[in-house]
């Protein structure tokens, strides 16, 4: 049963506004950065090692199968679960807003901030708020927005985009971080060592927590049965964001809901395993409404903003399984492409295999910023192997390619039309093979072709083509 499509206004895209060059050009830039390469390698290998250890202790396949079934059922029952979540949150004193798209969500939040006379906003990490470009909207309205997740704060100071869902600033070195902190604090009196830097950040950010009138967080999972928002973290900043300011705004993608605590418990176990390779995150904040009568800390108001942004339209389609995603980042860490170019190359807050699938789906398959993303994959299948909720990512990538309408794809479409006419008959197939082998022999020198013409030119950009086989004998 499909959700009735809403006619939303043209929504802002998901990809960043400051994209430069084509996707391929951005990969070339990333490949030329040795610092990035080293950091990505460290991060990817550490994650792989930790995964190997975990899998020794836990039955990944069984946990994955159960998580997959849970999430599939959540998406199947989505309208009812969202209705239940909404009611439960309201029963506990929270306000719920269903936003058709990012623009509507931003309008509500900016409107709320204005109405409450807010000057400073403290944020904890939220992919959804990056997707809807909430920071820009708040800053345009004259508010000061501070990212409090250490990595996100570093990026904010550097005016950069994240490299990874879970560890956004891993492409940066300590020296660069120290420089950014000096600039922010307006003083050179900033430590150089890692522990000193963390301590410095802690105090600077506490200043912001003290000033913030609104705390904005994401939501890892919404539990429909009790109206509880689960926010998972390791640093503790989300706890401060959701407990210190007088207003808490939680932004949630509409697909991030589970039915009950049995399901929530399983997903809350699977998430840190896949994300960081440990069986628990340091802090899991389970928030049900604003503070109660008699409590002296905690927000006085809780606003849950549930964003559709193109998600509802995926239900009932061949891409429905992409909605199972719990944003663990495992597919990124396992991806040979991501491990070599990093998340910024994708140009979207959602990078890696899942980002390559959902960014064009959420933006619209003709969107110039993202329509090439599904092609940036060798379809090796590592992502499908590691996804803790069993999303068939390689299949979705191929389906996304079929749906893409990039000009490049139109050109290959012409090529493949010719190809299919020639190669469905024995004789014409034979002819092309003979012609090709002749061309190889003519152009080959010492058993290799160094430059192919036309569509083959991209092959010989970086490698030779053997004109005889085996090539070395």
């Amino acid at each position, binding site marked *: 049963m499909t959700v009735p499509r809403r006619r939303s206004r043209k929504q802002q895209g998901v990809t960043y506004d400051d994209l430069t060059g084509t996707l391929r050009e951005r990969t070339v830039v990333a490949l030329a950065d040795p610092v990035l390469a080293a950091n990505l390698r460290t991060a990817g290998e550490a994650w792989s090692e930790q995964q190997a250890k975990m899998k020794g202790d836990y039955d990944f396949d069984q946990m994955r199968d159960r998580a997959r079934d849970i999430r599939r059922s959540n998406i199947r029952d989505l309208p009812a679960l969202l209705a239940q979540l909404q009611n439960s949150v309201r029963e506990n004193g929270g306000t719920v807003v269903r936003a058709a798209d990012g623009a509507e969500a931003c309008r509500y939040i900016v409107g709320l901030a204005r109405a409450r006379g807010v000057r400073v906003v403290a944020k904890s990490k939220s992919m959804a708020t990056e997707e809807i470009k909430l920071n820009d909207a708040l800053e345009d309205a004259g508010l000061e927005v501070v990212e409090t997740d250490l990595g996100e704060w570093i990026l904010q100071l550097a005016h950069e985009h994240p490299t990874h869902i879970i560890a956004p600033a891993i492409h940066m070195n300590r020296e660069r971080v120290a420089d950014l902190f000096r600039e922010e604090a307006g003083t050179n009196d900033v430590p150089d060592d890692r522990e000193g830097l963390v301590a410095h950040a802690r105090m600077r950010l506490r200043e912001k927590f003290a000033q913030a009138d609104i705390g904005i967080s994401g939501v890892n999972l919404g539990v429909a049965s009790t109206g509880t928002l689960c926010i998972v973290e390791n640093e503790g900043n989300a706890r401060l964001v959701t407990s210190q300011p007088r207003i808490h705004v939680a932004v949630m993608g509409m697909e991030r809901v589970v039915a009950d605590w049995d399901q929530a418990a399983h997903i809350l176990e699977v998430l840190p395993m896949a994300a960081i390779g440990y069986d628990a995150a340091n802090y899991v904040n389970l928030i049900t409404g604003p503070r109660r009568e008699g409590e002296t800390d905690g927000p006085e108001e809780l606003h849950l903003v549930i964003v559709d942004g193109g998600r509802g339209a995926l239900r009932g389609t061949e891409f429905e399984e992409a909605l199972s995603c719990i944003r663990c980042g495992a597919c990124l860490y396992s991806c040979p492409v991501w491990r070599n170019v990093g998340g910024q190359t994708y140009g979207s807050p959602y990078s890696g295999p899942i980002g390559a699938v959902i960014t064009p789906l959420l933006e619209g398959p003709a969107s110039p910023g993202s329509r090439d993303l599904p092609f940036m994959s060798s379809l090796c299948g590592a992502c499908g192997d590691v996804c803790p909720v069993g999303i068939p990512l390689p299949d979705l990538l191929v389906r996304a390619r079929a749906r893409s309408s990039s000009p490049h794809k139109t050109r290959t479409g012409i090529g493949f039309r010719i190809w299919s006419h020639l*190669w469905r008959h024995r004789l014409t197939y034979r002819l092309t093979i003979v012609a090709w082998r002749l061309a190889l022999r003519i152009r080959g020198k010492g058993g290799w072709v160094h430059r192919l013409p036309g569509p083959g030119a991209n092959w010989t950009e970086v490698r030779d083509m053997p004109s005889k086989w085996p090539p070395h004998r």
Partner: protein
Amino acid sequence: MRTCLSDAIAPAVWKATRRALERAGVEVRVPRGQTCCSQPAWTAGHPDQARAVARHTITVFAGTEDVVVPSGSCAGMVIHTYPELFAGQPEQEAALDLAGRTIEFTQFLVKHDLDPRASACGPVTVHDSCHMLRVLDEQDSPRQALANVPGCEIREMANTDQCCGFGGVFALEFPELSGRLGEQKAREAMNSGAPEVVSCDLGCLMHIAGIAHRTGIPIRARHISEVLGS
């Protein structure tokens, strides 16, 4: 199944496959009208074009014999993708039938305990193509098949499960990225200490060999059929 890559780049591969099978006592028929499993069109996002060519393949291989393929990726295409490609199509039954009879070459040898009586070969390192590893879920059959070859010593490379970067159309659309992955793979192969890398997939080997030659990494490449059919 010869595979279009073998036809176009290395006929020695399908001929060696036939030789190996015949030496092992198998009766081999090579249908003359065969063309391509259509994977390039499928992965490029053109399922209709893929279907047109795949239909021809289904017709050519109609029958009851096992279809042996010296390519993990082509075998994977037929076995795992033809059912999706032809779901709800008139050829659905024929497609499922073919998918049920298709098997990759080394898997066939191991399944039927066949010895192709290959001549000796030296140390090699094995590249597990992503399709063998993940689509066919197979890592053992190439190694078991090589175990029968006199003098064949397998020196495993590190990170065998990392993609070589070929990826079909990916190699042409993101050549620098594809090249970087290929270079990493060629170096791992070289670091294994073996002078040559073998694999069940010609696409990977063309790519690895091509990069090794361009960048001067000393590693040779052969398809596993060439070792087993030598």
